[in-house]
């Protein structure tokens, strides 16, 4: 394989990973932007989403990787799975917020964050106890269609995943910019007190942020399974940390920043993994996290700065 083709291949892989991280990073960034909370439960909402999508496809009679769909049935199955998964994980996010985090709103210090760690552990272990520790072959009805560009390969599934991610981000963008709820979210992020006085129901806004973030995490979970062809109870941790790094890199609280950060982290993972060594990937990504926080705490696109003023 020539160097250019190798590079191209790694860029294709990196953008695919990045699209997934971006979806996941959006959940971190929206919740942080509104209530300044790092939500560790988000890691495993993503993992749950990946199982939920698999179970939904199973419920529709599609199991394993031998059954390949084309055309309208494929689009239908993917669309139904995507929407149902996002609804379920979105509601899971709302439930988490309502039961465990709303009572702690306004409690200073580390208590809310510690609660999200506990929630994350609960999700993680419930799935572990339910499905076991071995990784599961993922249901994958996508055809094996692919194109060769030089020696690099672009598969249909990658194009599809890019499409889903970009589509969701465009929808999110218009939701936040264009709808009343979206504007209420922006206002709450700027100044919760003023927003409340202007008649914004802050509780609903926070619940909405959890719903949207968790729904996107569900979509990312489904993408993970379709991309890697497996899922397991442990996938939330690494992917979650990388996505969080992406959110910080782009500028936490900043929605376009999360998308940019996601793509960059995806590229760093695939290029770094190939040209340096896979076993050092996490070290590289965490070093980026630390360096960004220390030298440019507002991230690439800025706004909510993580240092106290």
């Amino acid at each position, binding site marked *: 394989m020539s160097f250019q083709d190798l590079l191209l291949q790694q860029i294709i892989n990196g953008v695919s990973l990045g699209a997934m991280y971006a979806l996941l990073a959006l959940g971190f960034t929206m919740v942080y932007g509104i209530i300044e909370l790092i939500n560790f439960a988000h890691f495993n909402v993503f993992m749950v989403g990946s199982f939920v999508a698999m179970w939904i496809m199973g419920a529709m009679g599609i199991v394993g990787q031998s059954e390949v769909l084309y055309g309208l049935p494929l689009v239908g199955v993917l669309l139904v799975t995507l929407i149902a998964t996002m609804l379920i994980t979105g509601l899971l996010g709302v439930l988490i917020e309502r039961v465990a985090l709303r009572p702690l709103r306004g409690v200073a210090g*580390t208590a809310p964050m510690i609660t999200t760690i506990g929630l994350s*552990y609960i999700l993680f272990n419930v799935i572990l106890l339910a499905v076991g520790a071995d990784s599961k072959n993922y249901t994958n009805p996508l055809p094996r269609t692919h194109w060769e560009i030089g020696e690099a390969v672009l598969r249909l599934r990658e194009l599809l995943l890019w499409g889903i991610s970009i589509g969701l981000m465009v929808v999110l963008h218009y939701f936040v910019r264009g709808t009343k709820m979206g504007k209420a979210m922006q206002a709450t992020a700027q100044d919760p007190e003023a927003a409340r006085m202007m008649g914004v129901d802050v509780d609903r806004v926070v619940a909405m942020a959890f719903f949207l973030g968790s729904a996107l995490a569900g979509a990312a979970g489904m993408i993970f399974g379709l991309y890697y062809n497996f899922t397991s109870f442990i996938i939330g*941790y690494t992917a979650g940390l990388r996505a969080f790094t992406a959110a910080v890199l782009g500028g936490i609280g900043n929605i376009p920043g999360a998308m940019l950060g996601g793509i960059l982290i995806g590229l760093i993972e695939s290029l770094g993994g190939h040209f340096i060594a896979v076993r050092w990937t996490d*070290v590289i990504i965490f070093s980026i*996290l630390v360096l960004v926080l220390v030298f440019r*705490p507002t991230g690439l696109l800025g706004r909510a700065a993580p240092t106290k003023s």
Partner: protein
Amino acid sequence: MSTPSIARPAGLIAGLKERARSEWGRRVGLLLLFLAALAFPLIDRNEGDIDAVANALAFAILALGLNIVVGFAGLLDLGYAAFFAIGAYTYGIFSSYQVQPEWSSFWVPFEYLGLVAHNTANGRDLVHFTVSFWLMLPVSALVAAFFGVLFGAPTLRLKGDYLAIVTLGFGEIVPIVARNTPYLTNGAQGLNGVQSPTLFGYTFGVASAPYYYLGLLLLVMLILISTRLKDSRVGRAWLAIREDEIAAEAMGVDRTRLKLLAFGIGAAFGGMTGTFYVAKLQTATPEMFGFPVSVMLLVMIVLGGTGSVAGVVVGTLILQLLQSWFLQDLTQWTHALGRMTGIGVLERVDLVQSIELIFGIILVVMMLYRRQGLIPERQSVKALSLDQQAATPSRGGIKVELGPIHRKTVDRNRPLLEVRGLSRSFGGIQAVKNLDLTVMPGSIVAVIGPNGSGKTTFFNLITGLMPPSGGKVTFAGEDITGLGPHQIVERGIARTFQNLRLFANMTVMENALVGAHTRTTTGPMGAVLRPPGVKREELAARARVLEVLGIFGNRLMPRIEHLARTLSYANRRRLEISRALVSEPQLLLLDEPTAGMNPTETLELTDQIRGLRERGVTILLIEHKLNVVNEIADEVIVLDHGEKIAEGSPAEVQRNEEVLRAYLGRTATAGAPAAS
């Protein structure tokens, strides 16, 4: 401490000693507990039980170390296991066959010291590291502390939640490095053949009892260190940072330094335990130090009581013994129940596997329903009698014997504070614009102005909480522009806050003692060893606090053991002023000291402020109540939109047209009585 009338230091010290005597009962209880712990391996001869408890002791030490970081200083560290790993590998590498350089004459002196041995294997001359466990115990602590400081230095200025994620990353990196450097650590297979400790020719080997006793010894030592640190100048500074970083800094605490200290000491505990644990297991693998270990330690702290030394130890023992004893039994009972009832799920379930689920549930339930943990850091105090609660406002200023507030000599003819061209803008808004101000020693200067006129920003600029965008601040002839808040307190400027920034979960006494931070010198070593000098300093500081609290009569005195958050609004203001006074300020900045007080309380405080001036304190105050300003201010500065629009005596300023316009609006000026 319940007698409100004490005012003389001698009496106070006697009171403190009396309290120390009442602690004897508690000490006897602890001694009995310790004796029971000593006897345990003699009573329960089951090797497995002793081993389980020895492991629990190791985790209790780790949890105590993490508690210094999370519980005392309030820094959520999710990668604490990394320091455990560093300590473990430090000892493991220097006392096993993992690293064996070629033998050369360079090693001869080390062989003489017993640090290495000459090893001939397969015809090659090699070095075998045989550094003693007892030497490595402190060395590992130091190495871990070094990494703690190295890693903490760039990240500790980040807000708490970011620190959590960075520490999580660090906790992840260390095991990865261990896995990826097999020549040092034997990678994923793990380090083997780590030598066990020997003491006077006795080898610890694989028996559990020696490790149990060693662990017990270390735990007792670290409990002592933790308790002593907590109840010291250093510990109070940590708690202050945990409660309110900005107020801590404004009271003279160098927060970066103290956070680093907490991180370093916590890491040292972790490193030492790592060495102990590896010597006990005689092996080390990267998996022993991952994220689950850090979370488990956090669960122990949260369950026992964040910041509570006894709580953390109890929380750890409960969880460890739950895992190693109770869950196994419970699983067997469940299986038996399953066989009896024929329910298949019960027959197969393994509760030991679900320990992490239990951890998660503990975290959530404790946070929602009992954040202070099983054994809270603070025990509740007795409610005050009605007699003690009764307080009649009285005029006449300070009625107790109280010497000068500070010990500096002030040049009466030179300005104490000189501000030239001070400016600060936020984005496009000029909050303070080109401000000039001179404050002579012994005067009371009031800063007034409409809301948003830049008064509080002005205070923030003088006290270093915010860097100015331009201009210069000179205090007692020294340029203090750009100094940090703690440096400015040290030079003799103290302040109170408009929206009250007390350390809510610290007692009245502790709050005020934080004020003495810059006037005392006890460091961590002194806090732990408590030589006579440290005891004297502590007693003097406490006596001083009681003197200062005495200014407010029986408002604060009966409440010195109460938490600041239980105080009334007016008493919080009084405590803030006391805290500032304990720092021995020459210049006291009061930001709306009478806000939230009724008219009689306001008059009382006004007199007391005048009394402070008589004791050598120069006062700069922001005040909205013009009667207060008229009563005590020698000079009034009026700010509007960040600019000084008038200055002069209260009477002059009241006649100033521009002031009237700023306060009442243009039309009001037209209708106002003739100003001249």
